[in-house]
C-alpha cells in the first residue's frame, strides 16, 4: 500500500467519522424496555393448584396407597376385586310405565278448524292467481 493510498484512507476515515452516527427515534430504548417488561409479565405462571392443595392431594393419595398396601387383609383381596361386588346399573322393564294422553276435543271446534282451513286454502288459490296475472 503506497503512501498516497494511505493518505486517501485517512481522509476517508476522517470524513466517515465526521458524518457521525444516525440517530434512532426518541423513544427507541423505551420501546425495547416496555416490550421486555410486558413479555416478562406474560411469562409469570400461577399454578392452578396451590402448594398447600398439592400437598393435601398427595397426602390423600399416599394414605390411600399405604392403606391398600399395608392395611387390607390379603385373604379378602380376591373378594374385594371381584366383579361380583361391583353394582352395575340395571333397567327393570316391568316397572317402566309409558303414559300417552288421549287427545280429545269437541265436535264444534274440530268442524270450525276444518272449515277455516278450507277457506284459507281457497283464498290462497285466489290470491296466487291474482298475483300471477299481475
Amino acid at each position, binding site marked *: 500500500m503506497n503512501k498516497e493510498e494511505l493518505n486517501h*484512507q485517512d481522509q476517508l476515515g476522517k470524513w*466517515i467519522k465526521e*458524518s*457521525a*452516527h444516525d440517530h*434512532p427515534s426518541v423513544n427507541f430504548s423505551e420501546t425495547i424496555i416496555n416490550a421486555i417488561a410486558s413479555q416478562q409479565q406474560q411469562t409469570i405462571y400461577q399454578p392452578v393448584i396451590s402448594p398447600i392443595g398439592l400437598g393435601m392431594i398427595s397426602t390423600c393419595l399416599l394414605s390411600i396407597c399405604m392403606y391398600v398396601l399395608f392395611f387390607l387383609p390379603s385373604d379378602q383381596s380376591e373378594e374385594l376385586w371381584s366383579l361380583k361386588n361391583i353394582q352395575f346399573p340395571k333397567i327393570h322393564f316391568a316397572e317402566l310405565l309409558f303414559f300417552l294422553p288421549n287427545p280429545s276435543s269437541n265436535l264444534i271446534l274440530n268442524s270450525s278448524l276444518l272449515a277455516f282451513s278450507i277457506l284459507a286454502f281457497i283464498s290462497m288459490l285466489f290470491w296466487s292467481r291474482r298475483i300471477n296475472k299481475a
Partner: protein
Amino acid sequence: MPYQDDLFYIEETKKGDLNAFGILIQKHEKYAFTLALRILKHREEAEEVAQDAFMKAYYGIHSFEGNSKFTTWLYKIIFNEAVGRQRKKKNNWDLIENEVAETIISQDLLGGIENLLAQERKELIQKGLERLKSNESAVLTLFYLEEQSIKEIQEITSYSESQVKILLHRGRKNLFDILQKITNNELINLL
C-alpha cells in the same frame, strides 16, 4: 451522560436490573442503529432490526461471558439480524467478488470534498454510504466509525480476513466513485 464500563451494566442486567439494560441501550443505540441502517438503507426497518437485536441481546445476556467486547457481540447480533432481514426482503445479499480494481482517485475530488463545509461534507458522505452496497457499507462503518479491528469485523461478520480486506478496499473505491458521480451531477445541475 457519563457512562460506566459495559461490564458493570451487564452484571446488573444479569441480576435482573432492567434499568441497567436501558442505560446499556442508550449507550449503544446510535452505533447499533447506524450499522443496521448502513445494511438495510431504510430507517424504519433499521430501527426494528436494532430493537429486535437488543431484545435478543437481553435474553441472551447470560450467555455473554466477556471473552470479547460487548460491542463486538452486539454488532454480531445486529449484523446477523439485518442480513437475515435483507435476505428475506430481496434475496440478494451482495456476494464478495475477489477481483479488486486499481483505485484511481483524482486529487481534485479529494480537494473538493475537503473544501466543502463540514455539514455539506457530512451530507455528501452519508449519501455516498447510502448508495454503497450493504456489505461494503457495513464493513466501512465498522472499521472507521465504530473503530473495530479487522479481527473484530471478522468475528462480527463471519467473513475471512481476506474477504474483510477486499470489502474494505472495494468499499473505499466504490465510495470514491459514488462521491465523484454525485459531485459531477451537482456540478451539471449548477451549470
